């Protein structure tokens, strides 16, 4: 016990004397969380800049333009006189899409010649592209509906029969847990956890392998009485405590101050976070044991850690990835905290349904202990390869 305490004291001294430690352990993770909260605070990037190409200039065309402008999805920020002009505005990035009202639109609509409203959306930017598409489509369909209504009532169809005629079957959609389709509710917690995991892994790998680089690894082991396990515990436990405090702060910011939805129990998410922190440390420790060299270990956790943001399936579902690629998602602790977050906080499932993710996080702790003997060997014989 006293050996462990000696090792902890040694590490505390090292941490307290380094600005880098303070910045990496506290400022950067909290800064990342605040960055996402602040950047995505709108929830949805509404009012996508778009344009209208009105080739008809009739009363009905102006009505369509007004209807477009009144939706919250698009903002008609300019009017173009031709398809080419609007296309050039898309290419130079002024607008994300445009709506074309054809010549003789009003005349054809009234005469029953079924004119075609065309709309163009630039999907090279997914979110504004999707939102402007949705706005354009809604207006195109409702324009059709309102012309139909006017015509039906003109031929004497009673008012209460018109709506069932225009739209006989309505499929209402309910987005469970996030009816506002708020982007921040997906991205902010998952990327905050992702950044936290990345920084924990990089910092853990840095503090372990730097002992080898500086040649202090023998003294580190000696403080722990020659036991690599005590030495690792002594080194990592103080960091665990700091990262616990930081991750709880992140959760307090999200669920306390920012009122992110919490349909399940915050308690279980906190428990998951408390396991997640040492799981990331254990993952990095395992890498350091296998590659006891600062450059290789740090390259490995960095390259893998950055890919984790994609593997973890924050935006593209893992089950649709190629099997040989998707399998990597299971190797990352970030994947499990993400699954626990969406299932617990967004969907409100009972902890029973996420039990395996807790088990997986616990398995990382075990994996961290597997190869420590290898690390001990290189600690006794520190060779620095730049």
């Amino acid at each position, binding site marked *: 016990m006293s050996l462990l305490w000696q090792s902890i004291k040694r590490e505390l001294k090292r941490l307290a004397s380094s600005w880098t430690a303070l910045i990496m352990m506290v400022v950067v993770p909290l800064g990342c969380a605040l960055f996402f909260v602040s950047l995505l605070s709108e929830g949805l990037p509404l009012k996508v800049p778009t344009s209208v190409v009105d080739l008809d200039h009739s009363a009905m065309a102006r009505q369509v333009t007004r209807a477009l402008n009144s939706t919250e999805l698009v903002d008609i920020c300019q009017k173009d006189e031709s398809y080419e002009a609007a296309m050039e505005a898309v290419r130079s*990035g002024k607008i994300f899409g445009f709506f074309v009202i054809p010549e003789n639109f009003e005349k054809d609509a009234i005469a029953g010649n079924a004119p075609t409203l065309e*709309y*163009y959306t630039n999907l090279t930017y997914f979110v504004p592209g999707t939102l402007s598409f949705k706005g354009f489509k809604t207006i195109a369909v409702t324009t*059709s509906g309102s012309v139909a209504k006017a015509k039906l009532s003109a031929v004497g169809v009673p008012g209460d029969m018109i709506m069932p005629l225009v739209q006989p079957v*309505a499929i209402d959609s309910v987005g469970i847990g996030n009816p506002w389709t708020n982007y921040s509710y997906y991205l902010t917690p998952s990327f905050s956890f992702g950044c936290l995991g990345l920084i924990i892994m990089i910092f853990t790998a840095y503090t372990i392998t730097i002992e080898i680089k500086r040649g202090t690894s023998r003294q580190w082991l000696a403080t722990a009485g020659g036991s690599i396990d005590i030495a690792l515990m002594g080194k990592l436990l103080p960091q665990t405590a700091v990262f616990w405090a930081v991750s709880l702060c992140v959760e307090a910011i999200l669920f306390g101050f920012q009122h992110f939805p919490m349909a399940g129990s915050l308690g279980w998410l906190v428990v998951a976070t408390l396991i997640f922190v040492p799981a990331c440390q254990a993952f990095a420790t395992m890498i350091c044991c296998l590659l006891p060299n600062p450059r290789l270990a740090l390259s490995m956790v960095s390259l893998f850690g950055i890919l984790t943001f994609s593997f973890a399936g924050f935006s593209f579902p893992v089950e649709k990835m190629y099997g040989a690629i998707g399998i990597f998602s299971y190797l990352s602790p970030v994947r499990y905290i993400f699954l626990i977050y969406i299932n617990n906080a967004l969907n409100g499932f009972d902890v029973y349904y996420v039990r395996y993710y807790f088990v997986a996080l616990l398995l990382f702790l075990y994996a961290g202990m597997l190869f420590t003997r290898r690390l001990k060997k290189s600690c006794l014989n520190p060779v620095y390869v730049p």
Partner: protein
Amino acid sequence: MKNAFLSVARVFRQEWHLMTHDVGLLVFFIVLPLTYPIVYTLIYNPEVVRDIPVVVVDECRSAASRQLVRQAAATQSFGLYGYASNMAEAKDMWADHDVYAILRIPSDFDRNIKIGEQSHATLYCDMSLLIRYRALMSSMTDLQIALAGDITSERVDMIGGSAAGFGQMPVESKSHFLGDTQQGFASFVIPGIIVLILQQSMLLGAGLLGATAKERRRRGGGVDPLDAGAGPVATVVGKALAYTVCYVPLTIYVLHFIPWMFALPHVGSAADYLPFILPLLLASAFLGQALVAFMKEREYVFLVVVFTSVIFLFLSGLTWPRYAMSPLWHGIGGIIPATWGVEGFIRINSNGATLAENAHPYLMMWALTAVYFVMAVAVRCFSQRRAQGMKAQAEG
């Protein structure tokens, strides 16, 4: 003038020698740009989400409700997982991750169609990933329009409306997608990510070399034995040129062959996007040298640069458009070369824009090149002065 040129050439040669003899650097300068674009594309290459498992709770059990399910199952996103006898059972399937949506057809669905009222069905959709929700929504909208076509014409016939010239929808509509015509995920995200990879790998490499030189100087008591011994401007320029020359073949590979290999959108002209990306490379090479100010030793490059990739990705507007950012983040995004690089390259590559149409991001990148050049020179001057101090101390 000739002297300055020779100094730059000397720095270039020395830096090239260091680059080719540092395994850690080769990982950043060669392996990373070669493999990352491939790995990223492989992750997102399935492009679209199809056949999302949906369970049906049919409380109506009529010909009309079965017809609705058949038509729904025929859409691209809707994959019929099976029927559940009630909502509780369906919810249990959802919680078990067997399905991602529940289609509930109420008991009066058929009756309402028969008596000419509006019928309702409800799709309860899992919101854990927006891409699934978006795909299902778009299928359901198409389904509604198709159903309207079928049932409406029948009903209008019945009340004699077709005699009044009302047979189909009075106004048609047609949608066109630009840039990413297949609405694929890889087609959208990869053109942006590859530009960011160029910048970040350059920052990592330039930072690593700079920090290593700093370490050597510290060990040598203020003298870096491998320094070319040129003035600050010549050193900064020579190094940046060495990195940029190394990146020319990689840039062609990343910007041309990656989209080509994976059949991603690639309609831009090389005469537009290659000159366009040049200031990005130069600005990154200077920024990397300026960032050395924060690095005490080689390993610091991981601490300083790696996590910024995530932040820069968001600031570039690829995920969250720049027009919706607050002035603060809009401004900070503006000082990152990749923000402009991503914006312009996507338009050239996916929308077929020309260099002239992207004059604004192009000029912004040149402006950043100038700014970071000055910063890199300043950092170099400062560290040279400190090295002289160290040397004087060591000698005195």
